[in-house]
């Protein structure tokens, strides 16, 4: 190998430290982490080298490196680190910086990662939804449904032509999808520099998909064994909710059947089960994290914000349904309002929040397969 010129970047080191990798500098390169890691490839294993690159601020070597996504933050490394350098946490911080680097526009990622901007981030959906409500005239009084019950579509309209749910959320979704598309393209290009690929992206994608569906890599974790189970629950709950949403679109636009739907409706069954699964899953995530704090680290603001958003969506969603059924308008409408704000938050900021891990990790896993990095 020819001489590689390296240029240390102190700014990047400080970014990693501020972004949840405050233990970074404790590493003294004993490589215990790489030895205990169950998910690293044997050849050039992580996270020892990533710790070194991060200490020297070698940004290019980190953000265009699929290895940081092959890491599932099992925290085996963190538990065994003799110096408390918490490589798991540091790699988490680097992943956050990767998302920031490739996401477009990247200033949003900066805002999502910084508690200073939390109010502004929430103010955006609050204002949008308030605007729709004002336009709909339901800010002060909400008309009841035909049978006198609470009907949320009367409070916040559904149809796109009413600037309702199907206007606001697809727009947010489209914004996120576009941003992801840009980001991933940049990311793939960065990773590909100087790397020979197999050229079988579809085949690699299939393999990765089966990995993800079974969480086979995640299950190799030792110290935080239970995490793969809770994550699996959250993952399938999301799939269930995605099915529910598509189903609702089908009801409304294809067969013209408006909500609310009775509880025995199969759509409602799938939706409610998924919602409960997600609530249980995210609560497991929280308890696991709290339980493993000592071994695995407390986690960053970035992580906890994401968990908080998911938990809040589920909590407000289920409460909205309960308040609606109990016919308590004074609680039902504000709760539903908050529910919508959180959903917008999750969708619109997905490319900048930890939600983005879904896309970047999958991409990196496909790339790793393509690059023969197993």
């Amino acid at each position, binding site marked *: 190998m020819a001489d590689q010129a*390296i240029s240390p970047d102190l700014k990047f080191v400080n970014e990693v430290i501020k972004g949840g990798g405050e233990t970074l*500098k404790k590493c003294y*390169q004993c490589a215990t982490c790489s030895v205990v890691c169950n998910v690293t490839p044997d050849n050039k294993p992580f996270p020892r080298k990533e710790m070194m690159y991060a200490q020297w601020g070698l940004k290019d070597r980190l953000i265009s490196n699929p290895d940081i996504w092959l890491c599932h933050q099992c925290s085996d490394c963190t538990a065994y680190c003799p110096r408390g350098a918490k490589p798991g946490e540091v790699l988490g911080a680097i992943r956050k910086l990767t998302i920031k680097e490739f996401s477009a526009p990247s200033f949003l990622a900066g805002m999502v990662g910084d508690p200073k901007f939390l109010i502004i981030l929430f103010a955006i959906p609050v204002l949008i939804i308030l605007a729709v409500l004002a336009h709909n005239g339901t800010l002060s009084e909400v008309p009841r449904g035909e049978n006198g019950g609470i009907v949320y579509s009367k409070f916040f309209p559904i149809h796109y032509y009413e600037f309702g749910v199907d206007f606001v959320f697809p727009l947010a979704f489209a914004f996120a999808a576009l941003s992801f598309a840009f980001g991933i393209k940049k990311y793939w290009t960065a990773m590909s520099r100087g790397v020979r690929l197999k050229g079988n992206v579809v085949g690699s994608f299939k393999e990765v998909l089966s990995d993800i569906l079974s969480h086979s890599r995640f299950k190799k974790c030792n110290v935080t064994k239970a995490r793969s189970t809770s994550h699996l629950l959250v993952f399938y709950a999301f799939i269930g909710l995605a099915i529910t949403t598509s189903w609702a679109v089908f009801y409304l636009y294809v067969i013209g059947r408006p909500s609310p739907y009775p509880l025995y409706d199969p759509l409602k069954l799938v939706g409610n089960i998924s919602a409960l699964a997600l609530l249980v899953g995210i609560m497991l995530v929280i308890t696991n994290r709290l339980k493993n704090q000592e071994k695995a680290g407390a986690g960053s603001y970035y992580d906890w914000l994401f968990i908080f958003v998911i938990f809040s969506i589920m909590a407000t969603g289920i409460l909205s349904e309960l308040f609606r059924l109990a016919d308590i308008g004074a609680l039902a409408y504000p709760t539903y309002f908050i529910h919508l704000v959180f959903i917008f938050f999750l969708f619109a900021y997905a490319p900048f929040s930890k939600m983005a891990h879904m896309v970047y990790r999958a991409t990196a896993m496909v790339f790793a397969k393509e690059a023969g990095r197993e």
Partner: protein
Amino acid sequence: MMEKKFGVYICKGCGISDSVDIEKLSNVAVKDMKIENCKTHDILCSPSGVQLIKDDVKEGVNAVVIAACSPRVKYNEFDFPGTITERVNIREFVAWSQQPKTDETQSVANDYLTMGIIRIQKSDLPEPNILENLSSTILVIGGGITGMTAALEAARAGQKVVLVEKEPQLGGFVNKLYKKIPTAAFYREPLIVDTDIETLVKEVENHPDIKVYKSSKTVKTEGQPGLYDVTIASNGNSETVKIGAIVLATGWKPYDATKLEYLGYGKSKDVVTNIEFEEIAKKGKILRPSDGREAKKVAFIQCAGQRNPDHLPYCSSMCCATSLKQAKYVRQNPDALAMIFYIDIRTPGRLESYYMEAQNDPGVMLTKADVTGVSEAGNGNLIVEMKNSLLGEDVKVEADLVVLATGMVPTTREPQEYLDNLALEAAKGDDAKKAYLEGTPKPEFILNLAYRQGPELPSLEGAFGFADSNFICFQYETRRTGVYAAGCVRQPMNMAEAQEDAAGAAFKAIQCVDHVSRGVAVHPRAWDITFPDPMLIRCTACKRCTEECPFGAIEEDEKGIPFYKVNRCRRCGTCMGACPERIVAFKDYSVDIIGSMIKSVESEEDEFRIICLVCENDAYPALDTAGINRKQIDPAVRFVPLRCLGGMNLVWVADALSKGIDGVLLLGCKYGENYQCHFVKGSELANYRFSKVGETLNRLQLEAERVQMMQVSIAEYDKLPEMINEFVEKVKEIGPNPFKGF
């Protein structure tokens, strides 16, 4: 010789009476040796037992034989001033290592008692040899952190001190430093603190008991501990002062960086040594020597010319912590980077937390790497090239200033090398010696000793020019009694360690002047008031003693007749072993005394007897420990302790064998490059003398295997009995000595 009134006291405790018939043993004293005053006691070391002896001493007993435990224990109890006291070890050597109540065991005990009584019969009460006009002033050579600390420690302990510094001001290398590593118990911010050397300098200069000579050198050191005449030259004047003992604290010089051209030194002004970097930092901002711009990317190359057989083969131990400290100088500008390239970070002990604290700074970047070169980048900066780094195989990085962590060269190295080479050339003949003296510039000597064995400390093999030091047991002791090396001249170390070293050496120097004032050996036989007293009338001026004395204690007069500088002597008896005329004797230790003890061992037709000459410093304690562990020793063996195997005289072997003893075993300590021997090379000399034992054996027509020498370390107590027993078996296979009964 004094008139002796004997008393033999036999202890029955610690299992002795279960192993030996005490009455039979008493009879050895009373009937065989005709000493009527023989008493026994259940526990002789108890107050009533000790009183029993004290009462006798009051009644006039002045030759006390105590048959009890090893002389290595209970020495406070069995201390009877004004008497000769002989300890006979029938506990560890008999009760604890022989089968109880057998005839053989009884015979072992009887023989030891007989030998003890013979020894005391032939010994005389020693009088301490106290020389006149002794000085207790401590001379400290070197006014750096070590020397100043040694001077203060000695002065605080009440000694007068003379401090000699060659520079015009005190402080040594610390004067060059911008800041120092804090020496507090735990390293926390700030990681760099003021050296505060001025306070120490002031304290030394203002101390009423410390006389400071600046811009001065010791040009001559004559005499011996307590009686040194040291000539100090300053600014053309010279003065001779009386000195008791010397602390050598002349420290180190930085390695010559011009030899490190591959690291860019001398080629670029922006490659500097760690010492030069201190001077840069002292001026304020870190400015590059080449263009005066502020350096913001500073590379530190560790082990620059160190741990490298082509330069310094050793680790200077302080450079890792120093570079971490200097990295913090760089980091006083928050935008600046310090990059440290190391082979290993070596921050032992509490410095580990210093390393952790310094490393925690995001702008202090570290990687293991083999730096292969430093070259110009073309833009005024430098490129550091490396292999095998943690950042990748072959990596290069740009820096605007490069600091080489060069190591320490002891100030003793140059004179040592000069003298060693001179000795080599001199051995080739006078012409070679003359050519060397004319062709080689003479380096500055430090001690300028007026000793037959040379003007400086003898060089220590494998020590790379560092001052002589018995680093295993007595780190401050050199082979020149009264000269104690401390600080970086002895071993690379940091400031905190140097200060500890200084205190240790100062107290050794104080011990030295105290002991010579009482006429006892300085160390390691710190209780010993005997001294070598040769019968010079029979001396043939063969010079063997003057050459072999490990401590240069023996000088020669114009006729080549030796005379002792007794305060330099450590009472090892190497001269006694060296002397072919056997004229060297101590009051309680001589060729005759040991020979008579050996000859007292009876060797009957039907039994085997092995004499084992035992080094008192390693093998003897190992045998005691073997006894404590109840390891069995063949009853054929009789141990005879020697102060040092270097005192071994072949006549003992000849006497023993011609008297019918079946074998002789010599137990010496280990020797070699890292000597651990208390007396430096006694064991080695014994081995050399032993190589001539063949003549004796030939003359007697005996098998060579009957005599053997072994090296034993103090820790080998578990193997030693087996080694001895194996030797006995081997001798038994050869068969009995045909001289038995003659």
